[in-house]
């Protein structure tokens, strides 16, 4: 493999910073990471800045302002590889709930001087604005998946990030199914794995933090939950969470609006 150190930049858009914290949370692996890549731009971690262009840009957060949209284009121009990380960057995040309401009305209600606020009507994924080389899901992302993706881009192999259901993680980990054994409404069967089935491990239904899995049958799950007494308003909220902007969850949620 190439011994030349890759230049990494970490960018923030509309987000809670949790995914960037997952990078810092790598702790033990951070030193090894620093041996193989130069952290050139990462304001969450350091004030020092090395100018672009960059080999890899990680983007956290969604596009919610006209300024964001321009910034995304600039990052794309300045980066060989762009990887969007987290639910905000890959589907618009929890703030994509604004896509279902009239934002200007809220701006007027909340801010004393609404004319100072320059915001878009929607919160959208980075890939809706620029071509993205890879999307890493999660709210927040899983640090081991992030290391896998970075290592794969450095080594030049396909990242091993399965797009299968959370159910598979439950079964591999030996969690009894919370939907079947406890009657918990669980999005696991339609949600992409990656979290290690964290919530079911603590007897909670899956919240869908990693967005829709490949080939999700959201309507069959919703119909089943509905037969078990889950109300339409709750079904809508179930799909309108951290990935409410992901097409499969968005379309399913609209049926109960």
């Amino acid at each position, binding site marked *: 493999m190439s011994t030349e150190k890759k230049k990494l930049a970490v960018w923030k858009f509309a987000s809670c910073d949790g995914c960037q914290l997952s990078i810092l949370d790598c702790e033990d692996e951070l030193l*090894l990471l620093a041996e193989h890549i130069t952290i050139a731009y990462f304001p969450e971690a350091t004030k020092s800045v090395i100018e672009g262009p960059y080999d890899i840009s990680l983007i956290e957060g969604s596009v919610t302002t006209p300024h964001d949209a321009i910034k995304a284009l600039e990052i794309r121009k300045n980066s060989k590889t762009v990887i969007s990380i987290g639910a905000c960057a890959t589907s618009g995040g929890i703030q994509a709930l604004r896509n279902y309401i009239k934002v200007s009305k809220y701006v007027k209600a909340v801010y004393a001087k609404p004319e100072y606020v320059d915001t878009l009507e929607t919160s959208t994924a980075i890939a809706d604005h620029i071509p993205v080389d890879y999307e890493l899901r999660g709210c927040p992302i899983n640090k081991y998946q992030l290391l896998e993706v970075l290592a794969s881009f450095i080594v030049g*192999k396909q990242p091993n990030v399965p797009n299968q259901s959370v159910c598979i993680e439950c079964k591999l980990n030996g969690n*009894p199914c919370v939907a*079947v054994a406890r009657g918990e409404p669980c999005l696991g069967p339609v949600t992409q794995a990656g979290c290690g089935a964290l919530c079911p491990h603590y007897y909670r239904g899956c919240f869908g933090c990693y967005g829709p899995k490949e080939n999700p049958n959201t309507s069959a799950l919703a119909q089943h939950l509905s037969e078990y007494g889950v109300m339409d308003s709750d079904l809508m909220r179930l799909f309108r969470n951290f990935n409410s902007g992901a097409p499969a969850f968005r379309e399913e949620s609209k049926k109960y609006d």
Partner: protein
Amino acid sequence: MRSKDRPRYVLTVDHLRGLFDELSDQGYEQVGPIFRDGAIMLEKINSFDELTLGYLEQQDKGSYNLDQHPDAGYFQYSVGPQSFKKFLNPPRRKLWEANGSSSNFEITVPERPAKMVFWGVRNCDIEAIRILDKVFLEGAYVNDWYQAAKEDLLIIAVGCTHPSKNCFCTSFDSGPMPYEGYDLSLVEVKDGAGHHFIADGKSDLIKHWLNDTEAQLASKDDLEIASRTIEEAIDNMPIRLNPKEASELLKTNLEHSHWEQVASRCLSCANCTLVCPTCFCSTTEDITDISGDHTERWLTWDSCFVGDFSYIHGGQIRPSTRSRYRQWMTHKLSNWYDQFGSSGCVGCGRCITWCPVGIDITEELAAINDNPVGPAKDKKSRGNEKHKGST
């Protein structure tokens, strides 16, 4: 000695406790059913008293409930979400790791599995192990880890006295009473009069132990009570399918409209395949650290309901849920005969209970049976249809 000629013994809980301790002293790792997180799970246990005691279960399509009951014994339920395949072919297993640079590296392979005892194995799971033997031990490619795990394996079987609503082992040759493939088999009898087990020892190790226990020989009455509890279990399981007929039926109904109907309900979540005691598919993952100096190869359970499972150059062979469900069901109930000479289903009912939307394989089969498409098509026309993108 033939099974019916062997003496049966009456064992107490203390006898079994003693057996557990003796096997521990002999270095066996012991696994069995324990209550955890609302279900009966199969796990490593360090004492006999960790085994589930005092639970009755209720299973239905997509639902599972356990209730504590003072009269319930150790094994008076059917099967939980896990089967013993998790110990013979673990869900995740490191195959090897490599350390060093590309010009100078060393490969290390993990140690072989410990010798194990399986407690409370139902006949459906014994059948499943027999099926897995064919998959992993016969033919050109032997799974050496499975082979090693099987080598010193002791199976303590139980006659299944409380089948669930989803059980249908009577539809196959097997039924609820183990007849081979075990070292010791037990029928638990718990009533007002007491709590004991009618035992049949098959292997030399167990026969010697039985001799040493000086346990009472089972009387005619004891045997009668044991066989009656099994008869009751059989009566509680209606025949749900005819395996041979099912195999033929599916072969001639590959384009049945019902596949689309199932697909509208199926989540392609893979739960059915992961709880199935005979589903054996796996994938391998390579994990490389960022330095490139350390690589691990892992074997992980996989499923025909996963998109990447059928991915080859150019795309997925089975992109639709229709094609995935059909692949699974026709493999279980039909193609398995061609591939391994038996059914791939043992009637344990796990796929019915643990399907999050309660899809019942026997009902789906019945729906096709009620309205079959017609006579068998020859291979050529089937192939052509497939080529037209019928999946």
